[in-house]
Every structure is written in structure tokens, then in C-alpha cells.
């Protein structure tokens, strides 16, 4: 049986004066971890605001778990079921970690005792041990990010909206945060909408992805399907004499290219033509080490989705795996 989508949007339009933030969003977010990708100004934050009922749509409607944030009562009901981790620092100095989380728990509707118990439980979960009794002024970026995750979890919400959870984290902190998000989504069965600039973060933690470009959904689907094997391209490796094998393939009417790491990428008219590569190898005396269909990366899928959009500046699109690796490598 197909599960009811956790978030449903129909014809969602939002204008801020002359600026069109959303231009008709239609999407069904399945349960489980979902990544929300898009260049800066694509409308991701507006989308989150609409889901929380903080911003009212110009047209269309969005629903969370069947609730439409139209009336005040609905907005209140929705916010009880949603946990939001904002991108900005947003933590008040002067409070301790446990005070902040328990206070926000009480504001959500937990009793005093429950709020304190839950605060300790979620702070344990995010591994803020004795630091929970320290004033927030002394927290590192990693601790602040984990605290923000803890406050989003304190009332055990049905849906978690995580806005750039790995923002500003060092590689170790980032790994830790991703492991928490992955655990929540994959092991604890939490519904997560993860907004991130980092495609590898989404690839690691989410099962589905939605790409928003210029206020429209450019692409959505499961990562497995979107990056499914492109059977027209195969990766071939031979034991030795790769250059000669390349010439032999060209002579057979194929167009091989050197793969970024090792071997050749061969574009074949049909998947069945992979047999032709084997025949060329056998007839010319080359020993094939491997022949695999090439899978698209999320990066390629994303670039394909935003193709045609005016993404001129590097900073205005999500960070690609190669760029991200250059930053995070020690």
C-alpha cells in the first residue's frame, strides 16, 4: 500500500511585492528523508515558511500530514507536529543548552517534567554531554548546530525541517551531524526535509530529492531512480595497453573517452552493444578487467535539472562534490 505523502503542495504561488518567490509548486513529498536542493533564491526558505504557516501563499495550498495551514488553529496544530532547525545561529546567549531545549519544549506544549526529561534525552542523543549546563555563549559552531537539532527534536515531531544542518561545520562535525540525520531518517523513521547546498550531504542522508529552481520544481524523485544506470554508457577497463584498445574501439565505430580516474567510458547506441565491446576485446587480444554501466551522480542529475536556468555565479548554486571535497579534505 502506498503511504500518504507527508507534505502535499498544489499550485503554490508566493509573491513578495514584485518578486515571485514561488511560481506554482506542485509536489508530494514521500515519508522518509527527502532532500530539497536549489540555487540561492530558488525559494527553499519561502517553502519552509509556507509549510510552518509563517508565510501565507498568494495562491495554492500546502498541507502537512493532511493539515492545511489556513486557520490559526491549523497552524498551531501543524507546528506541534513539525520540528524546525533554522540555518542561522538564533540561540539566545545567557541560557544554558538544557534550559533552551526545555524552554522550547514547554513552549511547544510539553509539561515541565516532560520538557526537562526530553531535553536531557535529546541532548544525550546529539552528544552534548556536560556542555548542556554551559551558557550558549561558549558553544562552538558544531555544538550550536547539534543544539539546534536537539531543540527541533524535543517534542518528537512527525516532520523535521532541517535548513543547512552542516553549515559552517568542520569535516568531523559535518560527519557527526550527517550521521545523526541519517540515523533519524533511516533508523528512527523520521520524516525529514533537508535543505542543503551540499549535494553529497543529501546523497548520503536522503532517499528522495526535490530540486527547486526559480520558484518551480525542476526535478523530483527517488535518488536511486534519478541516478539509475545510464545504459547507453559503459565503463571499460582493460588489463594493459589501454591506448591501443581505445584505437581498436574507434576502428569498430565506437567513441570511447578516457574516464576521470581509470579506464574508458564508451558510449554505445544500445545497451546490448556492450557485447560488441567484448567482441572487439576478444578479437584484438585485450583482457577486459571490468565492464560496468555508468550511473549518473546526483551532481549530474542536478546540473541537468538546472540546465537552462541562469546560474551564472558559482556561489549561487549548490556546491558540487568536487568543490566540496576540495574544502573538506584535510
Amino acid at each position, binding site marked *: 500500500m502506498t503511504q500518504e505523502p507527508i507534505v502535499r503542495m498544489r499550485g503554490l504561488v508566493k509573491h513578495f511585492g514584485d518578486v515571485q518567490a514561488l511560481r506554482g509548486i506542485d509536489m508530494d513529498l514521500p515519508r522518509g528523508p527527502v532532500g530539497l536542493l536549489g540555487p540561492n533564491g530558488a525559494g527553499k*526558505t519561502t517553502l519552509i*515558511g509556507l509549510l*510552518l504557516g*509563517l*508565510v501565507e501563499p498568494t495562491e495554492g495550498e500546502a498541507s502537512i500530514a493532511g493539515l492545511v495551514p489556513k486557520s*490559526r488553529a491549523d*497552524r*498551531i*496544530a501543524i*507546528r*506541534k507536529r*513539525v*520540528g*524546525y532547525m*533554522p540555518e*542561522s*545561529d*538564533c*540561540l*539566545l*546567549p*545567557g*541560557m544554558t543548552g538544557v*534550559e533552551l531545549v526545555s*524552554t*522550547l519544549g*514547554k*513552549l*511547544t*506544549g*510539553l*509539561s515541565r517534567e*516532560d520538557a526537562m526529561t*526530553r531535553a536531557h*534525552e535529546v541532548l*544525550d*542523543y*546529539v*552528544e552534548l554531554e556536560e556542555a548542556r549546563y554551559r551558557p550558549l555563549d561558549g558553544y562552538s559552531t558544531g555544538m550550536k548546530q547539534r543544539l539546534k537539532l536537539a*531543540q527541533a*527534536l524535543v*517534542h*518528537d515531531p512527525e516532520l523535521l*525541517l532541517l535548513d543547512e544542518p552542516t553549515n559552517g561545520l568542520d569535516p568531523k562535525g559535518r560527519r*557527526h551531524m550527517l*550521521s*545523526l540525520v*541519517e*540515523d*533519524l531518517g533511516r*533508523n*528512527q523513521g523520521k520524516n525529514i526535509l533537508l535543505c542543503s547546498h551540499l549535494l553529497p550531504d543529501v546523497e548520503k542522508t536522503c532517499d528522495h530529492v526535490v530540486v527547486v529552481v526559480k520558484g518551480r520544481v525542476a526535478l523530483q524523485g527517488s535518488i536511486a531512480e534519478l541516478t539509475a544506470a545510464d545504459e547507453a554508457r559503459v565503463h571499460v577497463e582493460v588489463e594493459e595497453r589501454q591506448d591501443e584498445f581505445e584505437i581498436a574501439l574507434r576502428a569498430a565505430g565506437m567513441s570511447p573517452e578516457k574516464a576521470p580516474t581509470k579506464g574508458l567510458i564508451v558510449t554505445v547506441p544500445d545497451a546490448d552493444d556492450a557485447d560488441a565491446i567484448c567482441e572487439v576485446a576478444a578479437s584484438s587480444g585485450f583482457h577486459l578487467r571490468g565492464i560496468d554501466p555508468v550511473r549518473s551522480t546526483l551532481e549530474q542529475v542536478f546540473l541537468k535539472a538546472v540546465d537552462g536556468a541562469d546560474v551564472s555565479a558559482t556561489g549561487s548554486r549548490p556546491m558540487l562534490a568536487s568543490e566540496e571535497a576540495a574544502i573538506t579534505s584535510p
Partner: protein
Amino acid sequence: MKAATHTEVYRPFRGELKTFPLRALTLAWSGVRIGFRKKLPALLLFVIPAIATIVTCFLVQITFEAQNPDITQGTIPQAKILGALLQEQLGKVEIQVLALLRQIKAFVVLAMGWYGSGLIAEDRRLRANLLYFARPLTRWTYFLGKLGTVCFWGFCAVGIPILMVSSVASFASPNWSFLLERWPVIVKMEAYAMMWVLLHGLLVLAISSVCERRNQALAGLFGFYILTSIGSTAMSRIFDGSAWRLVSIPENFERISESMFGFSSGTRPWSLEASLWALGIIVFVCVAILQVQTRKMESGR
């Protein structure tokens, strides 16, 4: 089940969320707790009101002692004269309380400004509004919570001294007569103090909501206060019209106190209604500013 990727386990919440929790009270109390951490400002801001309160308590005690029949109807003429003199000089308890309020009002505004100026400005600067409004919190609840925090400090600076003086008066009066016969005066004094605190609380929050930082809000509060007080006095002298003094918040409160406690200094010739209108306009403007600003904050701006 233990999570594979890290050491701690996520525990789902099995309880229920309350339907009508006192969210404004929670928010107000969290603000008060943060304020309690700042001990040095508390010492500096409340020590003068505390000393003034203790002195007033002594004066109230002496006033009632002077009414003692042993003195007023006694055989020592010097004691009789002294008793009558003290009664004449010190007057009624409410007069002494109003004198106390005049002495400490600058410190009360300072205390409320110190603890209240950052309440909305810092929330917005740090974008803590995103944390609050992502929860089932209405703008009204947020506003009441913040007002509760700032009024708590105002109550500490004004309401508690009045209660202390009233208690001393009750103990010192013969047969608890002050409490039993003149209790409406205690209620009136507290109501007057609360009105004072509420208006200043709204003013502090309204200024805080339009400022980027706490220090700006504090400066803005004192700028407003000094400008309206000094400005109104200067304008009334230049143009020789008392109507200008309606701009001053302390002048309006003085006029209200004259009506509430039944005495007249003769220096404020305008009507009580005019003062109420003047203060009402300030309240209206403050609430309107807060409404607009909290609306912006709710929508994440």
C-alpha cells in the same frame, strides 16, 4: 536499539502535548531567568530603590508613632509639638509612597530598560524569532511573554517597595487600622504602580522592536524619555502653554496620582481625561508598533 552511527540512542516521546499550556508565562519566566544571571546590574540598579524604600518605611513607622495617644495626649508638651510637627511634615502614607516613586523613577526606568531593551532587539538580531514562531506560539503570546519579563523587573522596582511600605504601615498602625480601614489606598497605590510599569514596559518593548541591538534600544528609550520630558518643559515655557507638558510621561502620571489620591499641587491645570488620552495615545502607538514588528518577525523577517 542502538544507533549504528553514533553512541547515543534516540528515544521517542510517549507522552502528550498539553492543549492549553501557559506559553506566555514560560516565555516570560525564561526571560526573567536570563536576567537573574546578571547580578552586578541588579545590584547597581536596585540598591538605590531598596535604600529609598527602607528610608520610607522608617518614615511611615515614625508617622504612626507620632499618632500614638501617649504622645498626642501625653503630658510632655515638647513631645506633643514634635508629634504634631511630624504628622504635618510627613503627611499620609500615600503621599510618602508617591514621594518614594518620584525619587526612584529614574532607576525603575533604567532597570526596565536594562533588562527589557534586548528582549525583542536581540531576538531579531540573533533570529531567535525563528525558533519561537516555528512553535505553536502566536504573536499575542510572544508579546505577552516579553511584556511579562519586562514588567517583572518593573514590579520588583516599584510594586515590591509599595507592598513593603504598606506592610510597615499596616504593622505600625494601631489595631491594623491601615490594612482594615484604608485598604483601598493599598489597592490604588498598587494599581497606580502597575499602570506605570505597564506603560513603561510597552514603551521599552516598542523601542526594542524597532532597534537592531540592545544598546541602541536602551539609548533610544532614554532619548525618548529625556526628549519628551525636557522638550515638553522647554516648549511649555517658550510658548507659555501647559498643554505641552502633556507630552511628558511623568507629568501625566503626576496628574493621575493627584486625582487618584485626592490632592492637588496646583501646577498641572489640565484635566485628568487629557492625561489619560495622552498616555492612551502612547499605549496605542506602542501596541501598533509591536503588532507590526512581531508580524514581521513571525514571517521570518
